[in-house]
């Protein structure tokens, strides 16, 4: 187990919990995320072209 360094940089920073880490590699959730990122980027591109 890695312990945080008290009063060090890591002491003041949020880190992901087990469920968040699971979701980052969960294929079904990531397929949804893939579509979501692409949608976000498409909107960005459309808004950026003048």
């Amino acid at each position, binding site marked *: 187990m*890695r312990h945080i360094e008290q009063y060090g*940089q*890591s002491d*003041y*920073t*949020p*880190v*992901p919990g087990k469920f968040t880490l699971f*979701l*980052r*590699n969960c*294929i079904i*959730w*990531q*397929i949804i*995320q*893939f579509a*979501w*990122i*692409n949608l*976000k*980027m*498409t*909107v*960005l*591109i459309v*808004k*950026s*072209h*003048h």
Partner: protein
Amino acid sequence: MARLIIMGGGVSGHTAASFAKKWLGNEHEVVVVTPNSLWNWIPSNIFVGVGEMSKEDVTFPLAPVYEKAGIDYRQAKAVSIHPEGKIEDDTPFITVEYTGQGKEGQTEELTYDYLINATGPKLNFDATPGLGNGKGDVGEHTVSVCTADHAIHASLELKAVVEKMKAGEEKRFLIGTGHGMCTCQGAAFEYIFNVDHYLKQEGVRDKATITYISNEYELGDFGVGGMHIKAGGYVTSGKVFAESLYVERGLRWIKRAHVNKVEADKVHYETLDGNMHEEDYDFAMLIPPFAGVGMKAYAKDGSDMTDVIFAPNGMMKVDADYESGARGFENWSPNDWPSTLQNPTYDNIFAVGIAFAPPHFISKPMSSPNGTPINPTPPRTGMPSAMMGKAVAASICDMIKGVADKPIHTASMSEMGAACVASTGKGLLNGTAVSMTMYPVVPDYKKYEYGRDLNGTFGTIGLAGHWVKLLLHYGFIWKAKLKPGWTLIPE
């Protein structure tokens, strides 16, 4: 028949040339002057730098692509601009010096009707003693991933260090910015995650101390003054998001640092509070500061007029409000940023991508008590650079065809977004990435509470971002090769 010359065949110049040729057809000439025979998808140099991709994966020869497209390709570097021509002939021209095509070292004058400067950055390694080799390239102490060849060298050095770790040695890695006025923190950010991933893969991560060193005021500044995103029911600073990524991987960081000297196993740096420090390393990848490539400009009578066209940093003046910098950070406005990218003195000259001179920083200017400026300079990343190339090509094509008498297409960084995907790992299932978008690049605090549209500014972490990065890699190389359907792939 009009002739458009594009100096620089990188992200912005290649985009401008490809669209200009498509829109102008064979009635007009499109000439690209660029010194490299290979086109490089620079963002993927990161993967070359950890040995996951080869140079061939991230480059391709330009000549056949331009030949097929009907673009006149000159493997040369532009040396000077003569916007008023000569005494005996008013036609504007540039001088070029060949670097290939069997004409190495020869010079030539090329006349133009329109000129686009897309020469990107001079990688100014020599700005920091010991970072450069004194001849403009990376020095012997550190590595770089800014070009494909630099990245190959970086991967070989990395492998050599890992071999020693496998034999039981502990090693210190230092990755970040090599000067207080650097931009392109995103590249260092992505590389440090890739090095961490590579060391884990090689089973030696426990023998490594990995440190990020940056001129940013806080992590996540990226030269755009940081950003805010919606996460977990909060609107939170990108600093929290960035720091979390470092802590999760056990990476240390040093911020507000100006590296002022690099030695064989140590960097010296000053922090914003004016204190001087040292940091030891066994392997270091430090991004150099950027400048303009150092082209000259001459008047009709041959007198030097470089300062009329170029800013002191060598980047080209365009339709930005260059007085705005002096008005102070609090008074900066999105309108300070250029939109048509036309040179104010010569209306047939434009600059796109890193080659244009920004009106001022985006991040707040800061100096140490010793007077050393320590803050990131504005990034001009791939997406905005390509969009600028396309917008300027569209404006010039309209002017050539007589549709418009002035540029009507705009690409202001205050009205454009940017996307950054920092990915690690290889294959479809073995990878992760941080995906971030922001809109607009230059914040607008009058329009948006947090300076940016929170619906267009977001960050997420996971495998999906890694897929997006792969898609971008293959998609953009397909597009750059002008393969079928290339126009459908957005910039």
